[in-house]
């Protein structure tokens, strides 16, 4: 219990200091674009009512989830195929490197042309942006399956789907999760950007709306909400990762100790 409290203190100290500095520095501000934190926090409950969370935050999160899930599925599936076959890899790798280098936000106008400005467009933008780190990390992870493990599986008749499920994917999972983690932050960025271009609801849309209407404190609250959302998602991600990759962290801790 004491250790938990101590950790909590460690975690909260820096955010508290930063908020205090922000509060103090902005307290006497009369700049319209840089309102005091006091004002922003006072506006917060008025802006982010349950109703607004339902109409703006929920659609954003749903679109993010749909795009992210699609990217995860496609990325892992394609990555496994590409990583498993040397020939396929040789053919695909240059193209993948090029496609990955294209900044995803630039795709928004293009995708708007054929997918319209509805949900599909935004989900597509998120999925296309998120898929690269997942795909490339899966390729690397699948490729790096230990030779002795592969031989063990083969000599015991663990082949085909069983090999994929029990050997290849678990062995690649640390890499896959590294990709998923990168993809998550990209996904949040693209969620906001896609809503800034053309949307009728969503967090990104709301922030732009406030800015255009010169509701500056309200705009700042939107930014805070986005920050909190990102933080929350990363906490959830960590919890999932700790569960799925428990073996990996344990293994690494053991190898570190024995060295």
């Amino acid at each position: 219990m004491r250790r938990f409290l101590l950790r909590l203190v460690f975690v909260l100290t820096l955010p508290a200091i930063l908020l205090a500095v922000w509060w103090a520095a902005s307290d006497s501000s009369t700049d319209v674009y840089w309102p005091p934190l006091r004002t922003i926090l006072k506006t917060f409950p008025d802006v982010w009512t349950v109703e607004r969370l339902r109409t703006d935050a929920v659609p954003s999160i749903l679109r993010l989830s749909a795009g992210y899930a699609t990217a995860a599925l496609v990325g892992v599936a394609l990555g496994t195929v590409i990583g498993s076959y040397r020939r396929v890899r040789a053919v695909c790798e240059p193209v993948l490197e090029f496609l990955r280098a294209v900044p995803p936000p630039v795709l928004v106008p293009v995708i708007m042309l054929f997918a319209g400005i509805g949900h599909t467009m935004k989900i597509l933008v998120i999925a296309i942006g998120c898929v690269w780190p997942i795909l490339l990390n899966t390729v690397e992870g699948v490729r790096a399956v230990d030779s002795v493990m592969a031989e063990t599986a083969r000599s015991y008749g663990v082949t085909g789907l069983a090999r994929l499920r029990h050997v290849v994917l678990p062995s690649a999972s640390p890499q896959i999760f590294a990709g998923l983690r990168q993809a998550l932050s990209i996904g949040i960025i693209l969620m906001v950007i896609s809503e800034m271009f053309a949307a009728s609801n969503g967090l990104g849309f709301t922030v732009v709306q406030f800015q255009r209407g010169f509701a500056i404190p309200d705009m700042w609250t939107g930014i805070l909400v986005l920050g909190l959302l990102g933080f929350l998602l990363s906490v959830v991600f960590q919890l999932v990762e700790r569960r799925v990759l428990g073996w990996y962290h344990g293994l690494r801790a053991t190898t570190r100790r024995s060295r």
Partner: protein
Amino acid sequence: MTFVKGQGMLDVRGLKKVYEGSGRRVEAVRDLTFTVDAGELVCLVGPSGCGKTTLLKCMGGLLTPTAGEVLLQGERVTGPPPGMAFVFQEYGRSLFPWMRVGENVELPLKQKGLSRSRRRELVADALRSVGLADAAGAYPWQLSGGMQQRVAIARALAYEPQVLLMDEPFAAVDAQTRADLEDLVRGLWRERGITILFVTHDIDEAVYLGERVVVLSASPTVVQEQLKVDLPDDRDQLHTRVAPRFAELRTHVYEQIQAAKRGTPRDAPEDAVKTDAPPPA
């Protein structure tokens, strides 16, 4: 297929393996012929780098020989046969770290399509016979090196193979653990009557464990000598290793290996195979 005990369980005939790649041609194994009888425990020794692992992988169906063949109970080995189990030297890389010990032992049995109750029975029995009855719920990396290799042995036992191939299984554990594991293998062999082919670079280990020792030459490998170990069946670390006969046998094997290292194979065919290796002196 009926099988008469005493006949060749495992036949290696004219086995040859040449690795080719990036302009280099390495003849790892030149021409190996030997037989392992059913229920026998045979040790293969040879100077380091003599292609022992290559040979074992060819026998286990993990590598395709360039020429010659391996027969398991008279049937040609083309891929890993269900009647063979492998124990690798690198236990840390051979056990799956994302599976608990019990799951590691069970996975090959699932592939065999055994029922859940039968699997549970086999796993418990195998873990018990290597002295790890309580470890089923642990992860391999929570165990010591010797215990991990025991798990690998348990996995092989649960697979119920006719032939157990062991590739320098104790090369990476400390001396005391090693002695325990040697006794474990001999005990299991006597108890279960499986055929074991044990590859090692340790001469003492080969003589202590084996009913027969096959001495291999330096690469490109041929059989340098086959030696029957006429020590009593009951062996123990304390007495067997100081027995005069043990000393004679190990001296003999040692001399053979030295001869093999110097490159004076007794019966290597002087054929016209082109190799990168220096010609025998």
